[in-house]
């Protein structure tokens, strides 16, 4: 189910003195099964763009095509489309409302008027997908969950609608390191095992770099870089200029590179960095 964005523009508070052009001519193509990271500083337009993917915003100028269906088209069934393109918001509290996990996860499928057995099967499946044991969590109170579990329950609630594209909007914010790792592992598994197209929106390069194969960098409503993860990180100076914080590893390797160590550009993964530094040092030792 490919996703295509053509000349998309969007402005907030149009017709008021506070008008703000959030998107200015976006062109984008995301193919089946890709894992794309969208990063950019706060208010660069990344969330606005992502919310066009499941028709939460309908374009006034430009087009968004999901599997060839124009979201602007009156004949497009938006409810069905939103089930095909799942969207998980940053704060799970925006989404979770029922008293138990099971009830909340079944909320989406129940909107589709599916038979009860199908709903039950979907709830079980999506809970297992995010690593929450069905028997243990089905009847668990939403408010008795930890931060990481809440987020996983929220993802399960969206997965139960059987999306082919999953948009994750800054979902690691506010988690502790253990919770963050939990979530990233779940997302990685979903993508690799279920081939769900994943679009990961974040302001943290650290999080995006772990999983995404391709990164789209946004700045003031425009896409300024759209390339493979490594290629993006090798343009460290540009990224810093627009106010993005590079992963610590990248900063460290860049500093060593500037000191003359022979290291490849665009390193962001700690294991790779360890290996590369060791290799550079080994080489230096051999030359001596």
């Amino acid at each position: 189910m490919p996703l295509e964005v053509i000349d998309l523009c969007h402005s907030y508070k149009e017709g008021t003195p506070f008008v703000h052009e959030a998107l200015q001519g976006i062109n984008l193509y995301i193919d089946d099964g890709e894992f794309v990271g969208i990063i950019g500083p706060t208010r660069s337009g990344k969330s606005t763009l992502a919310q066009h993917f499941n028709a939460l915003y309908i374009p006034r100028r430009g087009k968004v095509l999901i599997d060839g269906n124009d979201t602007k088209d009156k004949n497009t069934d938006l409810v069905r489309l939103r089930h095909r393109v799942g969207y998980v918001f940053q704060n799970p509290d925006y989404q979770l409302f029922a008293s138990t996990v099971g009830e909340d996860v079944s909320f989406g499928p129940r909107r589709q008027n599916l038979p009860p057995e199908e709903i039950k099967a979907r709830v079980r499946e999506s809970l297992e997908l995010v690593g929450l044991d069905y028997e243990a969590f089905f009847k668990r109170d939403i408010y008795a969950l930890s931060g990481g579990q809440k987020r996983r329950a929220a993802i399960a609630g969206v997965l139960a609608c059987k999306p082919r594209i999953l948009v994750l909007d800054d979902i690691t914010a506010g988690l502790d390191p253990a919770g963050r790792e939990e979530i990233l592992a779940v997302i990685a598994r979903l993508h690799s095992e279920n081939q769900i197209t994943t679009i990961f929106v974040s302001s943290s390069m650290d999080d995006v770099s772990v999983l995404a194969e391709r990164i789209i960098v946004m700045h003031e409503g425009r896409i300024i870089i759209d390339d493979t993860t490594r290629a993006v990180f090798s343009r460290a100076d540009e990224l810093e200029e627009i106010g993005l914080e590079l992963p610590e590893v990248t900063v460290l390797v860049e500093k060593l590179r500037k000191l003359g160590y022979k290291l490849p550009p665009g390193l962001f993964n700690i294991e790779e960095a360890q290996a590369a530094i060791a290799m550079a040092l080994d080489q230096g030792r051999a030359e001596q």
Partner: protein
Amino acid sequence: MLQGLKWIGVILDKLIETIDLSYSYRSGEGEAVRALSRVNMAVYRGEILAITGRNGSGKSTLARHFNALLTPKEGRVLVDGLSTADKANTALIRRKVGMVFQNPDNQLVSSVVEEDVAFGPENLGLPREEIINRVDEALNTMKLETVRHENPHHLSSGQRQQIAIAGVLAMKPECIVLDEPTAHLDPRGRREVLQSALKLNREEGITVVLLTHFMNEVIYCDRMIVMDRGEVRAAGAPQEVFMQEELIREMGLDFPVATRIASALRSRGYPLPPSIMQAEELIEGICRLK
């Protein structure tokens, strides 16, 4: 060396001390939850102390005892020698120890930056000129002069948190407790807030307690405390604590990036010191290998 001298100075002077502090509350389902059990710790005057531990480890509950938002039912908390259990001390203790919380949206009162910074001094009943001076000074320290008339809602979350810090600063506290001030911020806001916290400590001489789960913030602190299930599990200089590898893993914490790279290089036979935490230290160590 300097670090060592500072240590001798502070070790004698406890600003905040908890003695056998325990605390329980009742959860929504009515079960009693033990949030703190027999915590003995201290905050020394002039230091910057990191308190870390996974969510729900009790660090927030502990911090709320520091300025009498919670008062002990078992054990004691002394702030500058004053017991927080005595209601008569509360006002004075809150002047000495200021507190900044996780979400800037839920702690700002006014819709104008300078008015919010003035909120604390106004509560203290200070004369008008004094309030104006303090607000100017706090805005100046936090570099917020240019946005003083704006609505915080229209600023970045990092700036909003800086406003919250300025609001506490204007009350001229001896100690500022920052309760996960960077948890809801983007990486840039996180760096700005950390730098402010360091500046307050190093330049303004304010004692800082920083609750965090980001190790790249802990590494700039003089000391760290690791909490787990309401207990203090480790305390000491970050270098020393990070050497307890088993414990750090068990607590669900990360190692600083430089420490991880250094330890990988060490295992390949490069003699790097085990105390490396900051990127600069690692780079220096690598350069010295030549």
